[in-house]
């Protein structure tokens, strides 16, 4: 059996915020490896730094010190524009509040990240349709977000995260606004991404039931990893 490939390598990562004159340490010397195809859940109390860690891995926040390599690329060294391109090609985002564009249909929301690529219109449509099929919402493609249930909206958001075929999917409390049935549907989709599509999924959650869907769970406490 081949050795598992590290997709994320974090070394001595720290993040310190300045709140007025007070320095708040969100992350303190974190070192962590995440393997390809892993479904990692980040748990911990509010303010423990789990979302900050997720944001740094996803390239939407920068650490104060340390290194974060994703597929060998040190994302902390990329400039604003390089980082935007990198995110588009390598990271899929799923947020707690779905964050679909209300004036676009489910299909158009999924197609949105592909507008940044040079793909033909036909190819974009194929990919968007496939992503919607993966999350089981092909029949809701022409619906606006307000015409969908919360669970369906979140599945559209997952389809949007998948459509560029990223190696990494990050989800920040994706079931926080959902009822238990919808939450199960969403977690099953994320789990299958990891198991069948070999995507690396990193999910922040407070919910131990949600964390149980992951292949590994780590806890953060006051900006540090705890056992």
């Amino acid at each position: 059996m081949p050795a598992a490939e590290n997709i994320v390598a974090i070394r001595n990562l720290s993040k310190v915020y300045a709140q007025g004159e007070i320095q708040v340490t969100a992350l303190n010397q974190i070192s962590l490896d995440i393997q390809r195809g892993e479904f990692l859940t980040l748990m911990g109390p509010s303010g423990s730094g789990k979302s900050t860690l997720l944001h740094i891995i996803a390239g939407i926040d920068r650490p104060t010190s340390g290194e974060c390599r994703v597929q060998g690329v040190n994302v902390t060294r990329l400039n604003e524009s390089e980082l935007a391109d990198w995110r588009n090609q390598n990271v899929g985002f799923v947020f707690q509040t779905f964050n679909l564009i209300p004036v676009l249909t489910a299909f158009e929301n999924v197609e949105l990240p592909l507008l940044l690529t040079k793909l033909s219109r036909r190819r974009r449509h194929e990919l968007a349709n496939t992503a919607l099929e993966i999350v089981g919402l092909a029949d809701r493609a022409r619906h606006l977000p307000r015409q969908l249930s919360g669970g369906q909206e979140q599945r559209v958001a997952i389809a949007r995260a998948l459509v560029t075929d990223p190696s990494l999917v990050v989800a920040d409390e994706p079931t926080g606004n959902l009822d238990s049935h919808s939450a199960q549907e969403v977690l099953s989709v994320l789990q299958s991404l990891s198991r069948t599509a070999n995507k690396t999924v990193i999910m922040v959650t407070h919910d131990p039931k949600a964390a149980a869907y992951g292949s590994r769970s780590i806890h953060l406490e006051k900006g540090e990893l705890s056992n």
Partner: protein
Amino acid sequence: MTTATFILKNALRNKRRATLSIMSVAVSLFLLVFLLVTLREITLPPEDVGAALRVAVRNKISIANLLPAKQRPIIERIPGVEAVSPFTWFGGKYQNEENMTFAQFAMDATKLRAIFGEAKMPPEQYEAFESIRDSCIIGHVTAEKYHLHVGDKITLESSIYPCTLDFKVAGIYSGTADDRNMLFHQEYLDEACDNKGWVGMWWLRVSSPDEMPRVINAINKAFENTSAEVRAETERAFQLSFISMLGNVRVLIGSISGVVVFTLILVSASTMSMAIRERFRELAILKAIGFRRRELFAFILAESFSLAMAGLILGAGGAWLLFTHGKIAGILLLIAATIVLALALQSALRKQALDAIISFLIALVIARIGVWALLHPNISKMTNGFFLTFEVTPRIIAIAGVVAAGLGIIASIAPAISVARMSVVNGLKTLD
């Protein structure tokens, strides 16, 4: 979906606000075009060939001061002068009207063709005018307005001279820059109103444009240090100085236009900022999924620009249509009013009271303008004969276009800067 559809859907996501924004730009640009056309009309240089050869001679102190008739032979002897005619304002009121609605001037009828050759009339009317002492000729605009025909008799009571004169209409002319005036014999005025020896001003024709500066100089010098010094000038210079007596119209209209544009910029910038602020979270998401600052700036700019351009088409295009094709504008406005009224009813049925009231008021205003445009299909009727042509020139459209484009750009700057400065994480926090 294309980038253009994405921008369009965003621009129209709040239809009420988009409509009101477009309307505010449209109304302001309509006003701007109206002011610019007015300014152009007032300061329009005469374009006929005769204007290049005409010289106006007036009293140096004021146009209200008369000139002695004995100046005429002196002017006629100046080399380069082809024809001279007195031109005296009568200031008559017609049919007991409170205001003077058209100007009347006394002149030498035999010099009409030589000096104001662009006035087109059948030869027999010219001859009748020259031979009948109490005859007059009237511009076709005034003739149509008062339903006057050749052979009719009219009476005018002067507000300057202590007399009331009867005239016989000998001809109706057209083709001049201002087909409203009435012209009659200076001799008739002199005898009937005991005005012998005085004229209002002189109009003369020089033999060629090259002679113009020399003739003007010679006339001015001829009457230097006399009791009636004169100021001779080209027709254009005369018209501009005449306008300047109304006050500095150019500065006044320019100031109003400036205020219109400035207010428009404030309104648009505020609307655009509000529209973008509401979407901060979405823009943060777009950043997260890979849209760069320049792409987001392009989205905001395109949105702002498209709203401004829609306003331009409605405002400047509407002005052009209204001033040049009043009937078509009226019909289109009535159709638009019907559509807006239908939308108002739809909103009322949906119990959207505010939308219904706003739509109803807009429909009412549009319908009112539409009916007015139908009843006044040309600018002469719209302005009761004050303006004859009201041309929305390509230059004026271009100015409105530049203002609209500038507006689109300026209005997008502030929101674009705030979006550029926004970090994804902070943008996302606005949603939690």
